[in-house]
């Protein structure tokens, strides 16, 4: 047991991200993803791992919203489509370096997130979730009409005659191969998680925690709840928009790749993964992209089984008091997490004594 001396007490924060153990875990995880996985996995599984890396930003975005502010949005998948759309549209407009394109995608999708977040000023809980689901439906419908840009003229940039159905963004010249672009994506995702961690442990994180406890708590602490709720929507949408940009360069996109129902599945896996811990987002991305492939390719089970499992989870979430079920599902996420953490903790305590 290390006894906390007074100077240690001067640096208190249960939110502090940068404990040595967390930094080491994070760096080790990123290094494994960058160096080890490409050696041991086949090209097929590396494609899946690319998707997991990109989608971890999407689950991160939704996890931030649900876990930090207690806001449920069912409009996360269309945000990804929007990010992809914006990246394509800007690409056909001006020739920009890829990182800049991702940045613009993130910023503009973040603005869209603010628009989607406006109803949150008046609504909460199930009502807000339903409104965001309707917004998701509207965006998805719009997308089937306007399609992804393919170099056409006008604002929408779509040329019917030139349409192949599949839209791909050129990858950065430094990462044209699948493996190289996978690594690029892992690095971008890692940056996204760091940005999220900085937010959570800083002023926004504390303001969000107060909002999550109650509106009254937040206001009486001087928190501008409108500003911080919209900030959460913006950040959530921004990282998701970046993911859209990565997907459109990594595997390409089609118009019907972003069905409305997927937002519900997404919420289910995010809750399953755990929303109070950033690792929950990684776990959620695993559930979303890797787990179905394992069921299908390794166990020969139909993917519908999984959809049904997730579906049952969501129905129970929506039918019951939202906060209570988050707790339940988060505990499930934590339980899964603790299996991984136990050995590590034992090791850690072994060193300390």
């Amino acid at each position, binding site marked *: 047991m290390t006894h906390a001396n007074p100077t240690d007490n001067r*640096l208190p924060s249960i939110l502090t991200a940068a404990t040595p153990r967390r930094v080491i875990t994070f760096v080790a995880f990123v290094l494994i993803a960058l160096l080890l996985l490409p050696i041991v996995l086949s090209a097929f599984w590396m494609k899946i791992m690319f998707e997991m890396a990109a989608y971890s930003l999407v689950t991160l975005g939704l996890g931030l919203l649900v876990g930090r502010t207690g806001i449920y949005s069912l409009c996360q998948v269309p945000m990804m489509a929007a990010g992809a759309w914006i990246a394509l549209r800007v690409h056909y407009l001006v020739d920009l370096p890829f990182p800049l394109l991702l940045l613009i995608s993130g910023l503009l999708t973040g603005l869209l997130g603010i628009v989607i977040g406006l109803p949150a000023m008046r609504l909460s809980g199930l009502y807000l979730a339903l409104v965001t689901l309707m917004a998701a439906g509207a965006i998805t419908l719009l997308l089937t009409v306007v399609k992804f840009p393919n170099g056409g003229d006008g604002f929408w940039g779509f040329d019917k005659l030139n349409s192949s159905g599949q839209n791909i963004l050129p990858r950065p010249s430094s990462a044209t191969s699948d493996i190289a672009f996978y690594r690029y994506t892992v690095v971008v995702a890692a940056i996204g998680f760091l940005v999220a961690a900085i937010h959570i442990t800083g002023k926004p994180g504390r303001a969000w925690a107060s909002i999550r406890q109650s509106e009254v708590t937040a206001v009486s602490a001087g928190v501008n709840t409108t500003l911080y709720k919209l900030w959460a929507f913006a950040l959530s949408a921004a990282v998701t928009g970046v993911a859209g940009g990565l997907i459109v360069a990594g595997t390409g996109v089609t118009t019907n790749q972003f069905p409305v129902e997927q937002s519900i599945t997404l919420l289910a896996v995010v809750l399953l993964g755990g929303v109070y811990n950033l690792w929950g987002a990684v776990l959620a991305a695993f559930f979303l992209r890797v787990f179905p492939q394992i069921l299908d390719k390794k166990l020969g089970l139909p993917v519908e089984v999984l959809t049904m499992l997730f579906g049952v989870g969501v129905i129970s979430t929506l039918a019951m008091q939202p906060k209570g079920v988050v707790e339940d599902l988060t505990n499930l996420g934590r339980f899964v997490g603790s299996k991984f953490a136990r050995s590590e903790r034992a090791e850690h305590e072994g060193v300390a004594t």
Partner: protein
Amino acid sequence: MIVIDSLTVRFGGVTPINDMNLTMTAGSNGLIGPNGAGKTTFFNVLSGFVRPAEGTVTVFGDELLPMADFKRVRWGVRRTFQTEQAIADLTVYENVLLIEEHSGRKSSTRRADVIEAVEFVGLGNQIGRAVGTLGAAERRLVEVARAIVGHPRLVLLDEPAAGLPEDETEKLGEIIKQIPDRTGAMVVLVDHDMELVSATCDEVAVLDFGSVIASGKTQAVLADPLVMRAYLGDDERVQA
């Protein structure tokens, strides 16, 4: 100085504050009255959670009611809640820091201000602990630290001693007594514990059915037979 002029609050058919008129001038002011007298509703008006039908509240010459709710903290309104509202997921330090960083203070003094406030309420040793792991008395103290950090001007304490054992209440009283001198803020204390009120407050006002029925020096007011009657009507706690 706090000047409350013709304040009236209506919730549908209920009028929890009914033409309240009061001037508070002391550093520590008690506000007492039986259950349902409108004490918490009055605090909610000052915090901006309840919009009154009529009336004005002027504190140190500034009209409070036109200010947006969250901006009142920046102005200097702080409060604790009857059902304690410290944020369970954050540490003691973070709970207090939250107020400090939203009250428009220079960031260079933040850390020192927060530590000073936490030490003032005697939680220096618990500063890094999550509030959710603290006991009821300690959580109350966290709320008090939140209410006094930085530069408060009006500190509203809503039954801070409710549910606390006698010795904890005494300690809390000592802390509350020091707030006006230490911070320059005016304190309004709502509590059913008359011992606490008379130990901490120079002046007291009595609210009954949303109107002030007595106000003045604490000892004089508490000795007033009218006050006793209002209280004994439906609250026997005063006898203790």
